[in-house]
């Protein structure tokens, strides 16, 4: 019986060494995950939906019937009809075209803001989790400060300070959301660093940088992927709120957020103007959420928080 245990132990070691060598690219792991994901029909449907939305964003110039900034003064706030399926806005711009083009901004805001958040969050989280002690204390306090700071005020200050622009919006949204990533990564790294194979590589003289970048972060990859997919819709929603305060995407660039905030005045007069970007946000957010949930279940059936 003890031999069996030994064999099991060896197997486990092989597995972990494999991870160490190849990162999470360990085919068995991702192969299994993908199999699990494929079985989740809802998640797969949402994945297709997301691909579709991204395609719409990429091919916006082909798909949109009008230039999204073209102002047709003869058709201001036109009701939906054959020329303008969703009507026009208060400048006579075609709402459908603006929704199609808006996907570019909204989707890229979601993705880029999450990349920013992940870069900051993973770095600080991993450092805090790995070193512990004073370093951890300081980084944890910084995280608490960021978390406790009222987010809209922070966004207003950042956007006023840096000036409004898509790039700055990315940064502001990233700064608003990195703490969640950092917390999760910190927790994971704290657990992982006690694992035997990390101890082993440390004993073998691996540098700290190597351990963090090659040993620890790849193992947090599934957590990161899940956080990113679930964080993207969050960023899209944030942009809508910021636009409502006039500090989101600046005219004439359409985003779903600034459309919905501009449309609120006309909600009873031209309901579609307000509803359509809202529906676009909702579909995207739902798709990202369900896909993210599916991904989480597939990557790590145990991780459910």
């Amino acid at each position: 019986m003890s031999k069996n245990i030994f064999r099991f132990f060896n197997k486990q070691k092989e597995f972990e060494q494999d991870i160490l060598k190849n990162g999470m690219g360990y085919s068995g792991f991702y192969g299994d995950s993908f199999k699990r994901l494929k079985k989740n029909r809802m998640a797969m449907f949402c994945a297709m939906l997301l691909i579709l939305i991204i395609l719409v964003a990429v091919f916006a110039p082909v798909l949109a019937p009008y230039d999204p900034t073209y102002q047709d003064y003869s058709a201001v706030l036109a009701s939906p009809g054959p020329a303008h399926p969703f009507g026009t806005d208060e400048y006579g711009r075609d709402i459908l075209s603006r929704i199609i083009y808006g996907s570019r901004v909204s989707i890229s805001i979601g993705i880029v803001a999450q990349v920013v958040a992940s870069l900051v969050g993973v770095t600080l989280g991993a450092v805090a989790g790995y070193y512990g002690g004073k370093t951890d204390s300081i980084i944890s306090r910084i995280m608490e400060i960021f978390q406790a700071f009222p987010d809209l005020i922070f966004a207003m200050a950042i956007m006023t300070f840096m000036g409004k622009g898509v790039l700055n919006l990315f940064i502001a949204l990233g700064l608003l959301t990195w703490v969640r990533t950092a917390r999760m990564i910190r927790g994971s790294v704290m657990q992982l660093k006690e694992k035997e194979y990390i101890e082993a590589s440390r004993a073998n003289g691996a540098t700290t940088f190597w351990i963090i970048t090659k040993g620890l972060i790849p193992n947090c990859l599934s957590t990161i992927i899940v956080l990113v997919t679930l964080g993207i819709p969050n960023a899209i929603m944030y942009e809508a709120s910021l636009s409502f305060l006039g500090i989101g995407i600046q005219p004439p660039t359409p985003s779903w957020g600034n459309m919905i905030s501009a449309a609120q005045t006309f909600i009873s007069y031209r309901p579609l103007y307000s509803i359509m970007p809202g529906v676009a946000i909702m579909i995207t957010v739902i798709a990202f959420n369900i896909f993210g949930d599916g991904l989480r279940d597939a990557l790590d059936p145990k991780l459910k928080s």
Partner: protein
Amino acid sequence: MKKKFAGAFLLGAMVLSLAACGSSTGSSKPAAESGSDKGAAVTDAAKAQTTAGGEKTVRVAAVDPQVALDPQQYTYSIVMKITDNITESLLKTKGDGSLEPVLLTGMPEISEDQLTYSFELLPDVKFHNGETLKSSDVKYSYERLIKMAKMATLLENVVGYDELSAGTADELSGFELKDDTHFTITLKKPYAPFLSVLSTAYTAIYPEAACEEAGDTWGMQTLYGTGPFKLDSYQTGVGAVLSRFDDYHGGPVKLDGVDYKFIEDVNTQVLEYQAGNVDYVDVDPSVYPIYSGNPQLSSEMHGFQPTGCYSMTLNVKTFPDAKVREAVALSIDRKAICESILHGTATVPTSYIPAGIIGHDDSLPEFEYDPERAKELLAEAGYPDGIDLRVTVNTKYQGNVAIATAFQEQAKAAGINVEVEQVDSAAWSDMKHSGGVDCGISNWYVDYSDPESMLYPMTKTDTNSSFWHNAEFDQLLEDGIATTDTAERQEIYAKAEHIMTREDWATTPLYNETKYYLLNPDITGFEIDSTFRMFWKDADIQ
């Protein structure tokens, strides 16, 4: 007022205030008037302001001023909307621009040299705190205005202004008290709009003793005037409650009170009107088509033309060449903005000085949209490939953002690449002063019906973001205020206007708007004037 913020109350207060949810929030509303709170039950048909107690209270949807109700300190029109019914100035400007005495027995006598004005106050005018209006209260109020600094320059032509303003004197020496009801004011030089100045809300008369006593709380917790209504309560974010002043010198007031409800969101404001919960609401141009097309509401919608205009101002430091400024002026399609973006609530102007004001010349052509000519001008100025233009707008005024957005598209034809920069009020005022605004969109309304009120920002201070100075223009304005003959003044100001808007293109008028508001048809006698001042004095509910 030593309520200190303590964390310990957190949990307790959470529970308590949940329990207190049912009760009204403090004493902000008199009990008898609570009928108007039954918003839920009031339907459109039963739009009745006469509440259960038989009171006649008008409910006004207003924007939260967020500051003390003291125009001497805060010069916003939303402050005056409220205070004009509480406090009074010596004179009042009527609809036709003429003046009438309010707290005076008659129009003041003016000396031959146009320098000394003699006033006689009405006897027995009572302040809300029961005190009687005296000459010393007038003197106090004017001195306070100067000390408060914000609108002090209104009185800069009074003898002794400089000393008081600089702090070298304690009193305004040009103000001479004769007795409790008589006083004179002496000017340094003739100043035509002087009496108009004394009709503005900034020169309202406060009771000296009470105002001194109140200190910082003046306009917050205490505000006494001689007006038809007393201030019962004022709370930023909530509202202001006014009730009838029974000892009003101007005869009986018909309404029992005016209830200003601060509703920030324009949609919510109109929804509340439609639901019958408020009797007056301003209609933002952006929502105009929604209500003009609604037969039920269009009959309750009224318009008036405020004296002033929207304009676009270029920073002369950034764009020193008048040709470039002219090109920009030619590349905005005012007609499209008036007819489409503003749904016909505005007209294309012919001059910066609006109609009804001395100096306005309606024989001039409308400002035009000519991108081709604009291109030529830019080429002449050395920009054959066009220019980049950053247009800064204050997000507080969403209408300005809309104009900038439209201009952005229109200016493409002239080769002008517009970037719209939205900033909040604090950044906007700061940038204007520091020269950070290359091109700003703003509006300006007169404080009193005189061209000087329209034009002074262009010369006296650099607050209008243009930093434009023209010696001839400045001299014309000096001449203008020293002249009393209307025909002469017309000529002077028309010339000044021409220099500003058609020669130097320092600022370019965009449109003159018509303001709309919805008013409960049962209300009569309501007055709103072209300087946005709103009077409920003679109003009644049928």
